[in-house]
């Protein structure tokens, strides 16, 4: 079989996704978990660009626009997520996820 550039891009993005996944699953620091999620999101964005680049109609720019929106959402997610981390830290004096068991602050 032939390894096309698209293949390579997809492999890259899936590797990145898995790194993010492993990080998110195995770390207990909520900030690192958040960063892992962020990485997975980025991996998804890579896919959009890869398919836009090698897809049938690169001129449409839909992939780019999708990633643009995705970045915006990721920014919002990061802001809210980290605000949550800080709020949790205020209550629990810890950013370990294991410690944040109570829903009530």
């Amino acid at each position: 079989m032939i390894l096309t550039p698209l293949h390579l891009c997809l492999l890259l993005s899936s590797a990145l996704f898995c790194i993010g996944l492993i990080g998110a699953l195995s770390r207990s620091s909520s900030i690192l978990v958040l960063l892992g999620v962020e990485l997975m999101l980025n991996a998804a964005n890579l896919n959009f660009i890869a398919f836009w680049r090698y897809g049938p109609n690169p001129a449409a720019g839909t992939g780019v626009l999708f990633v643009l929106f995705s970045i915006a959402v990721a920014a919002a997610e990061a802001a809210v997520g980290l605000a949550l981390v800080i709020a949790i830290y205020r209550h629990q004096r810890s950013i370990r996820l294991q410690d944040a068991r109570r829903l009530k602050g």
Partner: protein
Amino acid sequence: MTGLLIIALVTLVPAAVAMALRNVIHSALLLILSWAGIAAFYFWAGAEFLAFSQVLVYVGAISMVVLFAVLLTRHTRTDGGVAPDTLGRALAGLLIGGAVLGVLFGAVLSTPLPIGSKPAAAVTVHGLGVELMERHTIALLVVGVLLTVALLGAVVLAASDSRSGPEDAR
């Protein structure tokens, strides 16, 4: 093709190391490098506008927020990280991650994909703008509202109770 490989290296290695390090600050800085690598990928793929946006948003903004959060939530300066993760947890993570990786790789490699023939007709900023304002107006508005709400929510969450009184601060 070598370009792509270098980009993959710059993206994957820091990300992997970042996920393994104990020092959160180092992790964050390495992740910034990884994000920069992703931006390089966008640039390589011909989406330069996206590359700059990625740098601006991730390197310029999200990284700052992350670093801020790390600094604000440290116990003392010395241990940037938190208590060590349990081995079982790490193993479970690795296992699941490995499994997913295997499935994804298998899927990608077993799929015949069209060979990218035509060179990318680079989208101009102007073209993007026109498309954004004409075809995706609603999406743009929604994202704008989302961002505003997220900003307000983040402010409310982060600034919530520290000064309001002793009953909140335990």
